[in-house]
């Protein structure tokens, strides 16, 4: 038999919610008792179905996709040690010498001819040398033909030694505590972070564009609905005006007819 009026003895609202969510952790047996009741109560069945529908609809509410940066702000509290820190510990004179060495190498690549002898320093482009000089330079040993080369070689060796020392001291310094492996790992980490950031920015832009497009589409739809509603109103108003006009015309015609008839009677 099915009841058309609910006669559940206990607290119906609580029992209904318990049954709806299938959460009977606190009140043992309430759900079972209500299940037996639902089998015969059409009112409760109908309400349960409706509330299940509400729950389905609630499932459609999704929050917008967030952009999270919280963990980065917390995780990157340690001061970042750059991978170029080691060379900053090299003395300034050594850095200048390195620059000169670099210039020397660059000059060689650029086909420059640099002479340093008793007459002083001479710099010429390779294209201004004659073939004979070229041959003699090629046949002569580096120390005899170009004393600057020996100087540069010595300087290079000294620089390499200095850099090695600087690197070793940086690596063993407790303040920096930065091993070469850590440096390369940090480098990879930076690149990875940059890649992630770029991806996040791209995602964010796409999302914003999509959101904007959506809002515009909604706006267009709203405008369209409003326009149709306005048109309907205008139509109604025009109809009313036409009616009024028709009535006025009719009245005027009747008056004219009346006047005409009156004038005929007077004659």
């Amino acid at each position, binding site marked *: 038999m099915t009841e058309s009026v609910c006669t559940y003895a206990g*607290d119906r*609202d*609580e029992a*209904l*919610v*318990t049954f*709806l*969510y299938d*959460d009977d*952790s*606190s*009140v043992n047996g309430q759900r079972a008792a209500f299940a037996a009741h639902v089998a015969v109560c059409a009112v409760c069945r109908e309400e349960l179905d*409706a*509330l299940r*529908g*509400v*729950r389905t*609809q*609630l*499932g*459609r*509410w*999704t*929050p*917008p996709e*967030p*952009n*999270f940066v*919280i*963990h980065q*702000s*917390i*995780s990157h*509290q340690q001061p970042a040690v750059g991978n170029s820190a080691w060379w900053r510990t090299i003395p300034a004179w050594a850095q200048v010498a390195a620059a000169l060495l670099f210039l020397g190498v660059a000059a060689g690549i650029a086909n420059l001819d640099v002479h340093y002898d008793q007459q002083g320093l001479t710099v010429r482009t390779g294209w201004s040398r004659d073939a004979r000089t070229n041959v003699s330079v090629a046949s002569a040993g580096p120390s005899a033909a170009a004393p600057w080369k020996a100087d540069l070689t010595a300087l290079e060796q000294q620089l390499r030694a200095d850099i090695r020392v600087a690197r070793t001291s940086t690596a063993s310094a407790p303040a920096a505590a930065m091993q070469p492996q850590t440096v390369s790992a940090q480098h990879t980490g930076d690149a990875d972070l940059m890649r992630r950031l770029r991806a996040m920015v791209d995602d964010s832009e796409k999302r914003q*564009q*999509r959101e*904007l*497009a*959506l*809002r*515009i*589409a*909604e706006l*267009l*739809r709203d405008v369209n*609905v409003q326009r149709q509603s306005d048109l309907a109103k205008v139509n109604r108003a025009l109809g009313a005006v036409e009616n009024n006009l028709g009535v006025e015309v009719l009245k005027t015609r009747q008056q004219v007819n009346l006047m005409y008839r009156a004038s005929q009677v007077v004659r």
Partner: protein
Amino acid sequence: MTWTDEELVARSIGGDSESFNELVLRWERPIYALAYRTIGREEDARDVCQETFLRAFRALPGFRGQAKFSSWLYRIALNLCRDWIRRERRAPIVQPPEDVDVMELAAASEPSESIEDLVARKDLSRAVERAMSLLPDEQRTAIVLKEYHGLTFQEIAELLGCPLSTVKTRLYQGLTVLRRELAKGEAKRTKVTL
């Protein structure tokens, strides 16, 4: 290896910041969703979410594990939401950027689902959001915690500091209001379509 929340909390208290990051990664979405559904504004929900984790981070040494970490986090987030609601309740404002031709953008945008479907889906989502916004705070919070976070009645009661029966009553009343409002909204949408 996957650590439990409680293990990660213990490691965080021991000074392992990576463990706390793991907790953040694990819980940021649920906390954001809770904040968004409670206060209804994306920006503010993000702020609440961030503030929740910052507060949790600061208060972590005092966390003794009387409750589950997630319940503790939910409580912080709900308190922040409550503060926010008390402070201000503003209408959402959406303004397109100045240098963007909105019509062109609407025409050019090619999302994976059609814009009509997207609008329809958003419409339904907004209808639910609108109906939820009509509920009193305590009913809305109960529904959000039950419906979207799957907490038991008992957990909700502990979290909100009220009797179990009150939680059920709030849920029932809230769902009943939602039923009415959603039916109203659906009728309105059908009318517009016709």
